[in-house]
Each structure stands twice: as structure tokens, then as C-alpha cells.
């Protein structure tokens, strides 16, 4: 029987190992799997390479994971946040590495990783400092850089509805990177707001087919990152 449900957050992230590459869904707080991230903080894996569009807010979620010293490298497009100094301070003091990737290139690299495409060409970043050191090539008179597919050991994502097969649907713009990250990781771990019966999701509207999903944990009332930040919350509580 195929049953990807898992009961505890501890079990959900238990095998994330030191040095793993972890993709984390979300664009800002929308789609951020904050309970899974906090479970990863509790679990304590170190030297992680994290792929996310941003670097988190305040002292919760992704920012807290970074602040806790578990992340040695960020791969992202926009590491600046008004509401967090965590990444900037570590970055300036040389304690965290940054691979800055244009947002669309980041998305396409993740999709390529999931689709078995080792590399592709894009015009994005040509003639800019971000093209330095990259292979360039001309097709039909236009210049392109070669970019590599990106894979992960784990993806942590958040969805709206899931069934035990791991079929997923999302809520509005919280979808963002989750469907492609689900395809690019050896193990995809999902927190869902609702767990529904197999068959409850119309086959026409499944966004992530279960084949891409390994574990599903139900978090019926996820914390809202911006609220925690506004309240000045810190994770873990100290």
C-alpha cells in the first residue's frame, strides 16, 4: 500500500544529514513550510546548502535556520530582506556563502534538475557580472550562458491539500517554487493544511502528482511568518 503520511515532524525530517542540499519552498512567507523548517532546527543538521528565493524574515523560519548556524551556503535570487539582518551579518563576516542566481534562472535550474536536464542555455545575465565565469554561446545571433540543472537531497514544501499518494494542490501564490522543488529532490517532504481521501482531488487539477512526493505531514494551522515577525518571536525560544 502506498501511504506517504507521516505523523510527527521529528520523523518527517529525521534523515536530513549534515552537508545535505535542501530546497525550501516559498517566496517570502507565501508557501514557506515554517513548521518543517522549525523541525529541521530542532533536528540540528549542519553545513546545509539551502535553496530558496530569499533568506527569511525576523528570527523565525528560514532566518532562524540560518541564525542557528546550520546553513553554510545559500543559493538564492534575493537575499536582502527589510525585516532580517541575520543573513547580511553572517555574509559580511564571511560565515555563510552565497550563490546569487537570477530568479528565473533559479526556477529553470530547479526544473531542469527535476527533469533530467543537466544543463541549458539562457540569455538571462549575459553581459552582467553574474555571467562571469559561465560558458557563453551564440545561437541564432544572440548570446546565451550555460546554466546547470540543480538537484537536492531534500525538498521541504508546503501545500494546501494532499492525499496519501502525495498528490498536491496549492493555495494562490504560495505555489511558487514548490512544484518544481518537489521534482528536483531525492526526498520531498510536504506539510499540508488538509489531508484528503485518495480520489478527492480531481485528476485534472492535481498540481504535483504523487510520484514526486515522499512524505506528507498535516499541519492544520500553520504559523504565519509575518505575524511571528511582527510579534518579535524568536525560534527556538531562548
Amino acid at each position, binding site marked *: 500500500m*502506498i501511504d506517504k503520511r507521516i505523523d510527527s515532524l521529528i520523523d518527517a525530517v529525521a534523515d536530513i544529514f549534515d552537508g545535505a542540499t535542501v530546497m525550501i519552498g516559498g517566496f517570502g512567507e507565501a508557501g514557506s513550510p515554517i513548521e518543517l523548517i522549525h523541525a529541521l532546527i530542532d533536528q540540528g543538521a549542519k553545513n546545509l546548502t539551502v535553496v530558496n528565493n530569499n533568506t527569511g524574515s525576523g528570527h523565525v523560519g528560514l532566518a532562524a535556520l540560518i541564525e542557528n548556524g546550520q546553513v553554510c551556503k545559500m543559493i538564492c535570487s534575493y537575499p536582502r530582506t527589510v525585516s532580517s539582518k541575520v543573513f547580511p551579518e553572517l555574509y559580511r563576516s564571511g560565515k555563510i556563502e552565497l550563490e546569487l542566481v537570477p530568479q528565473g534562472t533559479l526556477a529553470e535550474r530547479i*526544473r531542469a534538475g527535476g527533469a*533530467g536536464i543537466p544543463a541549458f542555455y539562457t540569455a538571462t545575465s549575459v553581459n552582467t557580472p553574474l555571467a562571469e565565469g559561465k560558458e557563453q554561446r551564440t545561437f541564432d545571433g544572440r548570446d546565451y550562458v550555460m546554466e546547470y540543472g540543480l538537484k537536492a537531497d531534500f525538498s521541504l514544501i508546503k501545500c494546501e491539500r494532499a492525499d496519501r499518494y502525495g498528490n498536491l494542490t496549492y493555495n494562490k501564490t504560495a505555489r511558487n517554487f514548490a512544484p518544481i522543488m518537489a521534482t528536483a529532490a531525492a526526498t520531498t517532504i510536504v506539510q499540508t493544511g488538509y489531508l484528503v481521501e485518495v480520489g478527492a482531488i480531481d*485528476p485534472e487539477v*492535481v498540481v504535483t*502528482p504523487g*510520484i514526486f512526493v515522499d512524505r506528507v505531514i498535516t499541519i492544520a494551522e500553520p504559523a504565519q511568518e509575518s505575524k511571528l515577525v511582527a510579534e518579535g518571536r524568536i525560534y527556538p525560544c531562548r
Partner: protein
Amino acid sequence: MSIVNRQDFGWNREAMAKRAALDIPDGSYVNLGIGIPELVAQFVPEGREVIYHTENGLLGMGPAPAEGEIDPELINAGKKAVTVIPGGSYFHHADSFTMIRGQHIDVCVLGAMQVSEQGDLANWSTGDPDAIPAVGGAMDLVAGVKTIYVITQHCTKTGEPKLVESCSYPLTGKAVVSRIYSDLAVIDVTPGGFEVVELAPRVSFNYVQKRTGCKLLAGQQLADAAK
């Protein structure tokens, strides 16, 4: 060629499919090629849940529909009418081949024209210049799916061996086949060559060897069975 009653000898199409089905693990995502491989779905052992992928955009393919319930827009890669199971999903072709090329499908069972002892597969073209070349998704499947099984008659209709030292037909993929289910035996592709791991009823190792285009190894299982 054989003088014994065929019913007691070797495996027929269904028996080959049934034998292959034994090797599909519970919880697998599986793509079945056209022909005998399609039959595998009927023989998955009780208690195992297997999800079938068809590359034209469906995960969770169910059996053929009842006569009156055919939807010409719900078909498999062989363009036959199928059904969808609860928990299935539809997607477009690029997403479907993301599953294949991205190594998300666990097992693919294909037919073969030739398999070499290195696991090379030829199943798309005889190389005949007059034939219309047609490849479909076969090259994508062998390049992307983690485990490739082949179900095939051991010999061609004219008695030529299909398991050979090296394929004379154009390849579908190089070193891709793990295991072969023929009407005569189950044969693994190993670093040392073809290894017979199981013989069909009343079939001897020598009988299989005579109908194979290269040297066969006898697997430990055969030795154990002989004890």
C-alpha cells in the same frame, strides 16, 4: 522446434507477464510498454499497490473500460482506451517526460527485438531502409527509468535468437536492460554477461543456451534449485 506439448513447456504470454509482475515492488511507479508488457498490470500480486504511468499524460492508469464507457480522450501510449484510478492525475507531455527523464519512474517493462549481453536494447527499428522509422518514447524510457525489464519471446518467429552478443539492429539504448523475461527463462544482465536465474517449466539450461546468441551463465538460484 520443440516436440513436447507447448502447454506444458515454457511460459506463454500471460505467464511471462505474471512472472515479471512478481518483481514489481509494492509502491512502485511503473511504465508498461505496448504488447505483452501491458499484461503485467493484471498480475500484480495481492497486497501490492502499483501506480501506472502512461507517457501521454496520465499517472494512475486503470484497466480498460467497459464497452460502453470508452472515452476517446482517455487513452494510453498504445492509443488504447483506459481508465483512471482514484488518485490519478493528468499532465502535459513535458511534465510527463519530466517523470521519465528525471528518473522518477521506478520500473519500465518493454518489448525487445534484440538484447545484448551488455544490456543494450534494440526495440525500435530493424534498420531496413524501406521501413518507416518510428521511435515514440522508447529512447526516453530507457535513458530515464531506473530499472528496465524486457519481456520477449526468446527467439524471433524464424527462430533467430533475440539475446545476442551484440545487437545488429539500431540501438534504443546502451547498457540499459536489467532483466529479461522470455518464454524460456528469467535472465539477468550481469557484468559477466547473461545469467539465467530461473527456468520456465520443463525447460533446461541447455535448451535455452542453444537458442541464445551468446554464452549464458547459470545463476546461483539455478544451482540451489537443482539441489
